[in-house]
């Protein structure tokens, strides 16, 4: 690297109560360079980025911009210096419109201190930004709460670009984006780096890192574990530095059950209120991982939520272990042995203001109750057990869940369901924001559960994960299940083809795999 780096941080240290999050980290980025920062959950990546963005103050260390030492006491100061952070956890004012969120804190105004909003100018500018990130312009005046997580993420990105940005920090920007939206993001990154913007890119999806980073730094336990450039950037190298050892089996599907197990969950012509008019039919077998692919907004989450009882049913039949089900409330779904690990863990998966232990116990209080009530000692022991079993990194069960790193929060959501030994697990983006090590652990867990005969319905936008874990894949497009692929015919192209609305195999595809409802016995039956 030659010349003055755009951004340089030197010896940053940050102590939280009970956790030394950063212990003397230094790094530098050149103008127009994409530097990826990787590391396990809790390694301190987000903390470092928040320090650079003026949200936290370091206990020690220095930040230099274009060679000059700067102090960034507030986010506003960092923004004024051209540093823009896209947060790992969505941080939007959901009661405001998309346009208002894009400009929140930096409204275009007239009239001096009156700060009279210039609505027209903001609308024009916002429309351009939305186009740039690939969000449909009709969303401009929608309240953000009505957007899907993927769309919210795009709003965050548009927000970051609205600034005269010199350093763009993206903390897991793709964790809720679909394949197509991710491609779009790469284009955005390519465009800003051409304009000389330095990009700091954090992701747990190592394939992405490999693809878009010029250089990778690895954090481990708050320290710099190593640095990779160019051809050194390989999956194995990164993993070795991150976890300090080789990870053998990454996708450990050992219990692949052939295609044998009995059908556990079956939807027949199922429709729900507010859903698409086309009914959905679907089967998940015991011991099987059914992958569900589709673009963001294809209606996968909605379908899962409806089956789980979050949305009211309209018609059709749902069978669990050959018994017809009628679910009006998640309580009934859980009683029947069906659980949901939701896509948006902070909103639907966790009581954020409560402790790790509280969250783990919540759905299992019946299990923990004796005639005299809950035994605190036993509860704590039980919580410890799950914390260890899932390797949740927390100083104690009493730690607030909101203070855990993203990946560890996700593990808490798993922990709270696994104790009940569910028959059907609906996993909506099961490893969103989870590091490689923990991912491998979660995959092993899924495999183990499948091995014990659970039926797993896994909704995912992570192509690697889909290809690595699913025994069978159904693809949704615009609210409909448009096709099914079994293991032999599963490929990225086939999935994308169906997900983008293609019905016939793409040219040159040898497989008949993309026919609707492809069955293992080789017979394509009528759709529906």
């Amino acid at each position, binding site marked *: 690297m030659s010349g003055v780096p755009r951004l340089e941080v030197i010896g940053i240290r940050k102590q939280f109560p009970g956790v030394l999050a950063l212990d003397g980290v230094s790094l530098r980025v050149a103008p127009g360079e994409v530097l990826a920062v990787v590391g396990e959950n809790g390694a301190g990546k987000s903390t470092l980025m928040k320090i650079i963005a003026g949200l936290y103050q370091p206990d020690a260390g220095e930040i230099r911009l274009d060679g000059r030492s700067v102090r960034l006491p507030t986010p*506003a100061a960092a*923004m004024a210096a051209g540093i823009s952070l896209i947060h790992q956890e969505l*941080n939007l004012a959901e009661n*405001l419109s998309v346009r208002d969120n894009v400009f929140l804190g930096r409204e275009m105004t007239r009239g001096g201190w009156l700060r009279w*909003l210039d609505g027209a100018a903001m609308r024009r500018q916002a429309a351009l930004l939305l186009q740039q990130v690939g969000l449909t312009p009709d969303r401009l005046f929608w309240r953000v709460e009505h957007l899907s997580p993927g769309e919210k993420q795009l709003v965050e990105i548009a*927000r970051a670009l609205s600034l005269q940005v010199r350093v763009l920090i993206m903390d897991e920007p793709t964790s809720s984006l679909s394949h197509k939206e991710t491609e779009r993001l790469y284009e955005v990154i390519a465009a800003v780096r051409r304009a000389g913007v330095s990009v700091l890119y954090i992701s747990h999806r190592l394939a992405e890192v490999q693809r878009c980073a010029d250089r990778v730094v690895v954090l481990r336990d708050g320290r710099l574990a190593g640095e990779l450039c160019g051809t050194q950037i390989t999956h194995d190298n990164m993993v070795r530095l991150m976890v300090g050892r080789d990870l053998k089996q990454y996708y450990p599907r050992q219990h692949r059950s052939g295609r044998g197990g009995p059908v556990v969950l079956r939807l027949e012509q199922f429709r729900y209120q507010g859903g698409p008019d086309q009914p959905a039919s679907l089967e998940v077998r015991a011991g099987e991982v059914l992958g569900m692919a589709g673009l963001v907004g294809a209606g996968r989450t909605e379908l899962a939520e409806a089956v789980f009882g979050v949305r009211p049913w309209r018609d059709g039949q749902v069978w669990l272990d050959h018994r017809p089900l009628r679910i009006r409330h998640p309580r009934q779904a859980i009683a029947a042995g069906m659980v949901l690990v939701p896509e948006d863990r902070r909103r639907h998966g966790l009581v954020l203001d409560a402790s790790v232990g509280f969250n783990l116990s919540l759905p299992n209080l019946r299990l923990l109750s004796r005639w005299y009530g809950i035994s605190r000692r036993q509860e704590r022991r039980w919580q410890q057990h799950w914390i260890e079993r899932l390797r949740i990194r927390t100083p104690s069960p009493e730690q607030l869940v909101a203070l855990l790193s993203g990946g560890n929060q996700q593990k808490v959501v798993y922990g709270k369901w696994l104790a009940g030994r569910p028959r059907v697990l609906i996993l909506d983006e099961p490893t969103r924001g989870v590091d490689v090590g923990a991912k491998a652990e979660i995959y092993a867990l899924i495999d183990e559960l499948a091995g014990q005969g659970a039926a797993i319905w896994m909704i995912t936008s992570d192509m690697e994960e889909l290809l690595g874990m699913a025994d069978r894949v159904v693809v949704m497009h615009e609210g409909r299940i448009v096709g099914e692929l079994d293991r032999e015919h599963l490929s990225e192209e086939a999935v994308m083809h169906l997900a983008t609305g293609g019905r016939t195999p793409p040219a040159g595809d040898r497989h008949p795999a993309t026919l609707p409802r492809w069955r293992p016995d080789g017979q394509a039956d009528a759709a529906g």
Partner: protein
Amino acid sequence: MSRILGVLGLLTVLYAALILSNPSAGRLDNLMDVANIQGRYGLITIGAALVIIVGGIDLSIGSVCGCAAVLFGVLMERGVPPAAAVALTLAFGLTVGLINGLLITQLRLQSFLVTLCGMFIYRGVARLLAGTVSRTRAVEQHPEFVESLQQLRYLLIGKDATGELLFPAQFFLLLVTAVLVGFVLHRTAYGRYWYAIGYNDQAARYAGVAVERHRVIVYVLCSLLAAAAGVLLLLDMPSVQSDSGGLGLELYAILGAVLGGCSLRGGEGTAPGMVLGAMVLPVLENLVSFRGLKSDVIPAVIGLTLLVGTMLDEWIRRRTHPRG
């Protein structure tokens, strides 16, 4: 926009019922009387609503209003000219708001607790200042105030020397305030920040908004409006008792704000909604008195109305499109 349809419907029904209930109820002078009360309620409702929008609550409004009325009277009795007394009383409101705001943002105390304490404290201060204050007594002691006091009364209340209501000045005051507040809320960056803070102060902070400062500003505005309502109270009424002046007004104000579309969760509410929400209660009270019902039924009727209003509001809200 749809957020105010519910309260608009409720008001229409109430006004129709009022006019049909009694021929004299629909007369202009009665409607002006009602409007005058609506104006005073409206001012405190706006204050309460702003606090609710930033995700807080202010329970001290009634006591601050009563205390301000008493302070205003005592100052005049001690020989402070009326205009100066108004200024000092408003300064009192400002100070109270500043204290509330700083306690809530700097010491991170909960707004409910801080203002609940304020509710007791300022009621106590009022009772320490005087048992009762009256305009006539102030004028007896200082005859030189007669003219300026009457001028104030004409300007702010709309009543002439005989006590007849010439025009609903308090309602006009409300409209002017609502337009100003509406401008800030809906047309400037400050309003944007208030909505963002109320819904998700973390998001606002991350966006570089000075969350604490804005919260303090809003509490100051709220107490300032409450003190202004206290001044109006003493200008309107012949006398104000320190133990009952403005008693329970905070609940009326919160109720008006909620009827007008503010969500107690924060981040919701519009200026027109606040005005409409504040208009409901005085009409209702007037209706009850014209129906010849005993004032004992007023609390029950108020409670029921609020319930119906919130149900209507929720029903409409569930039917709205993601836009807007």
